């Protein structure tokens, strides 16, 4: 017999270099804009320059006559197609839904809304012809500010939404929380603005499509985090055709951060145009379009009230929140500030009373939906600022207030007073990463240095974020009963084919945008089957040949997707043992599978390798009674619970007293994301996440002027941070596996962003404490900080 398989060595937990990189570092990877189809035409989209206007008429005759133009289309050409679905609404309450049309027909409600499309022989010709389309707009009154929009005298943007309210949602016990606040020894109140952000994946969005009249089949390529959902929404809710008539494909995706979860009007438009034009069509978003028409993130105003005892024990937290959702709703907009925000307001703490009311609000601004962290950064910001504000009010150490309120290790699984509707925090040991982070930063040493610095007139500060977040959307047992989510159990799929040679092809339903799924999945397959990682190929992104999957967001690809792969491999190994028992003429109960070989327990020298078993299974002429050929398997995994990563992030800052500039001196992150499959990839996710979260605290702001023009409308005016802006991040981890899944993994894609914003703001407020400055809203730009310092020094402060 042959024993060619390598000995068993699990590579789970190893920093395996990425299998994706070979094509990415050589320019060989194909992204949407690299796609060239025979006879392909190019599409450019005319967008509204007004934030709110009636479309009186559109004249396309000049554009149609322009050189190279194939056709010009307006909303009236697509009147037969319904407005886009809003597929994830706030649970348990009425949602007053208004969504984009394929192209708007009568009215636009934000600058950037699509009103016409040119199809041309080249992208230059298409863009030229846009300027020849004449639209007669009647400008209407505009509301930009979310607080203005809910005022009594506000204009009404949508007939079906009185008061501009999308939904009025709440969680927690209002009465008990108010009672606890009334009885609290101290109550701290603050208005917290979580500003609008523009996500800026380096690859903007795009889509291409073909249509075959003979069979009625569409193929749509798109920049997507979830091609199966795109196909479902387009076939069932827009075109009204069977799934078999549409194939959706995501190629390499150049970053998403949430923005590529959603069904956008342009994706539907491409499919519809392919049919009308009778040729392939492609549209690639420009960066300016990306700013105007791709979803934004955050944009909350929260009115926080927190009650505490004088010893720092927090007794109640209440947060009424206005969530600006824009002029129309994106695909899962109402779900973000509800399911993923309100339900996470217990943070890492044992708050006995919590109440959160969220009003989703329409304004004449771009659509707001999930952006990295999606609700949890906003929740973490509220909770972590609340803890610091209590510490400040009571003149207590913010670290000690955190320790006093932490959920203790023996309280898990922990139900945060019902606000998760029965879902429980899985596992946690919150002091561990806190202690480690304090050790790294030398907390006592820093406080001594800070005292010296303050005496010298320097403003140095330290800020903490001892966050917890939720990953792995979503268990059927929860999402179904709560009535939130996609309206379905959010399991994940894995389909594994073991070829005749023992090479393994894995198709997964999750869809990476840079997270390295192929590497992570290959590590699991190689480790479980005992084969070289080079023998694994991972296939992603094409609805034609992958089982349905919900895609990649909410840090679910490891906690749900990878577990589907793992479970599938257990079934394959079980079958391999049965076949090996037959080949070795032994009882299956005596067969063990280790290191890529099956053998009778205690007799490893007489083994059948996985390659031999795969070959026998494929040839199939001598199979045990009742066994089918091949070791292949398809598995769907429905998690029993979500997972809850946690950790401590610490920011150390110094503020230039002359300019107000915040210098981020050190950044320490000690995260516990459960078991780690690839520490290199995990650290990369945390580093990238921190960079985005820090950027919210200090630099980024999606700003509209009073007329609804996006002022920060390009990379010239919106601060996408550069390498120089950051120090080197200091990372460490603790590892508390989850008991929710057999891999022990929790999820890591968003922790950095969720944790870091509050840490930096808390550090700046600590630095400014001698001036009596208690709170400033983000971004903490030099101008904002300098003005606050000047005002405080001129008599506004306590110090």
């Amino acid at each position, binding site marked *: 017999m042959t024993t060619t398989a390598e000995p068993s060595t699990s590579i789970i937990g190893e920093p395996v270099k990425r299998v994706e990189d070979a094509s990415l*570092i050589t320019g060989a990877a194909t992204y949407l804009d690299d796609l060239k189809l025979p006879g392909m035409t190019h599409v450019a989209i005319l967008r509204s320059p007004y934030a709110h206007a009636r479309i009186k008429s559109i004249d396309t005759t000049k554009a149609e006559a322009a050189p190279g133009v194939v056709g010009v289309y307006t909303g009236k050409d697509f009147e037969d197609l319904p407005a886009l679905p809003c597929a994830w609404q706030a649970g348990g309450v009425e949602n007053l839904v208004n969504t984009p049309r394929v192209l708007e027909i009568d009215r636009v409600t934000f600058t950037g809304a699509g009103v016409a499309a040119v199809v041309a022989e080249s992208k230059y010709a298409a863009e030229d012809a846009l300027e020849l389309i004449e639209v007669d707009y009647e400008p209407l009154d505009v509301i930009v500010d979310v607080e203005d929009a809910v005022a009594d005298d506000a204009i009404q943007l949508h007939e079906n939404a009185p008061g501009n309210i999308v939904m009025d949602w709440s969680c927690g016990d209002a009465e008990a929380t108010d009672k606890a606040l009334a009885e609290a020894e101290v109550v701290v109140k603050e208005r917290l603005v979580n500003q609008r952000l523009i996500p800026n994946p380096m690859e903007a969005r795009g889509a291409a499509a073909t249509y075959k009249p003979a069979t009625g089949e569409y193929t749509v390529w798109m920049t997507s985090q979830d091609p199966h959902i795109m196909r479902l929404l387009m076939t069932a809710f827009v075109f009204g055709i069977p799934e078999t008539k549409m194939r959706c494909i995501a190629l390499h995706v150049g970053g998403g951060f949430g923005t590529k979860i959603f069904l956008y009007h342009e994706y539907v438009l491409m499919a519809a145009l392919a049919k009308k034009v009778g040729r392939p069509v492609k549209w690639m978003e420009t960066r300016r379009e990306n700013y105007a028409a791709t979803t934004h993130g955050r944009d909350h105003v929260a009115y926080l009230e927190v009650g505490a005892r004088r010893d720092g024990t927090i007794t109640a937290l209440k947060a009424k929140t206005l969530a600006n959702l824009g002029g129309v709703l994106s695909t899962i907009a109402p779900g973000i500030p509800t399911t993923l925000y309100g339900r996470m307001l217990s943070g890492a703490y044992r708050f006995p009373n919590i109440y959160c009311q969220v009003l989703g609000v329409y304004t004449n601004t771009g659509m707001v939906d999930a952006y990295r962290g999606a609700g949890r950064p906003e929740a973490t910001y509220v909770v972590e600022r609340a803890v610091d504000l209590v510490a400040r009010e009571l003149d207590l150490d913010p670290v000690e207030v955190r320790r006093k309120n932490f959920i203790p290790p023996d309280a898990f699984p922990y139900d945060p007073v019902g606000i998760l509707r029965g879902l429980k925090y899985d596992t946690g040991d919150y002091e561990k990463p806190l202690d480690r982070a304090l050790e790294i930063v030398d907390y006592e040493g820093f406080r001594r240095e800070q005292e010296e610095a303050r005496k010298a007139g320097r403003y140095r500060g330290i800020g903490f974020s001892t966050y917890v977040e939720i990953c792995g959307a979503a268990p059927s047992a929860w999402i179904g009963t709560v009535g939130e989510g996609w309206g379905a159990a959010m399991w994940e799929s894995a389909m594994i084919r073991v070829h005749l040679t023992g090479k393994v092809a894995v198709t997964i339903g999750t869809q990476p945008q840079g997270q390295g799924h192929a590497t992570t999945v290959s590590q699991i397959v190689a480790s479980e089957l005992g084969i070289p990682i080079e023998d694994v190929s991972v296939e992603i992104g094409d609805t034609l040949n992958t089982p349905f999957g919900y895609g990649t967001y909410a840090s679910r690809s490891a906690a749900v997707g990878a577990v589907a792969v793992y479970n599938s491999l257990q079934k394959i190994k079980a079958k391999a043992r049965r076949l090996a028992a037959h080949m070795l003429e032994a009882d299956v109960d005596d067969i063990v599978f280790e290191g890529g070989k099956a053998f009778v327990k205690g007799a490893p020298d007489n083994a059948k390798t996985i390659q031999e078993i795969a070959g026998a299974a494929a040839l199939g002429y001598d199979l045990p009674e009742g066994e089918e050929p091949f070791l292949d398997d398809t598995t769907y995994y429905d998690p029993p619970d979500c997972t809850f990563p946690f950790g401590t992030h610490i920011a150390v800052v110094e503020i230039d007293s002359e300019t107000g500039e915040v210098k981020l001196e050190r950044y320490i992150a000690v995260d516990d994301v459960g078991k780690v499959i690839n520490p290199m990839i995990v650290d990369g996710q945390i580093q990238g996440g921190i960079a985005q979260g820090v950027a919210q605290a200090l630099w980024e702001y999606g700003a509209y002027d009073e007329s609804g023009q996006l002022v920060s409308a390009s990379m010239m005016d919106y601060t996408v941070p550069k390498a120089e802006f950051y120090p080197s991040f200091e990372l460490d981890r603790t590892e508390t596996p989850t008991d929710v899944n057999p891999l022990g993994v929790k999820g890591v894609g968003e922790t950095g962003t969720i944790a870091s914003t509050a840490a930096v703001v808390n550090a700046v407020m600590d630095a400014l404490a001698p001036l009596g400055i208690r709170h400033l809203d983000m971004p903490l730009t030099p101008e904002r900080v300098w003005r606050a310092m000047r005002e405080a020094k001129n008599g506004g402060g306590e110090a």
Partner: protein
Amino acid sequence: MHVAITVNGALREADVEPRTLLVDFIRDQVGLTGTKIACDTSHCGACTVHLEDKAVKSCTVLAVQADGATVTTIEGLAQNGELHAVQEAFREKHGLQCGFCTPGMIMASVDLLAATPQPTDAEIRHALEGNLCRCTGYENIVLAVKEAAGVSQ
């Protein structure tokens, strides 16, 4: 207008509109799509190539300006099937995630190391100010450039 540009060692000729950007010439006429377009405003550096051995943003150069010149793109960096040290280092140090900024980032890094063979962290971060990455937080890009600098010692 007729242009003749040597791209990765091969002479490429085409009739282009005067307004044609070098990046569009490279991507659409030559068919090399490794060079990316990401910002419209010359801020992001995803389109960085070497023009006469110096890094330029190819969205800011007209194809006619490059007439008669030599251009190297990400596809031309590896020699005889051997990856360039900077390419190797980006993989080794996980200096990329989604990969969209990577071709430009690598081309800019090669240029940086040509000018400053042993850069400090600060010099690397400063020199790459024209190249934006939204995935990595730049940490591993800095490590990759240092790694490549060590290899080229």
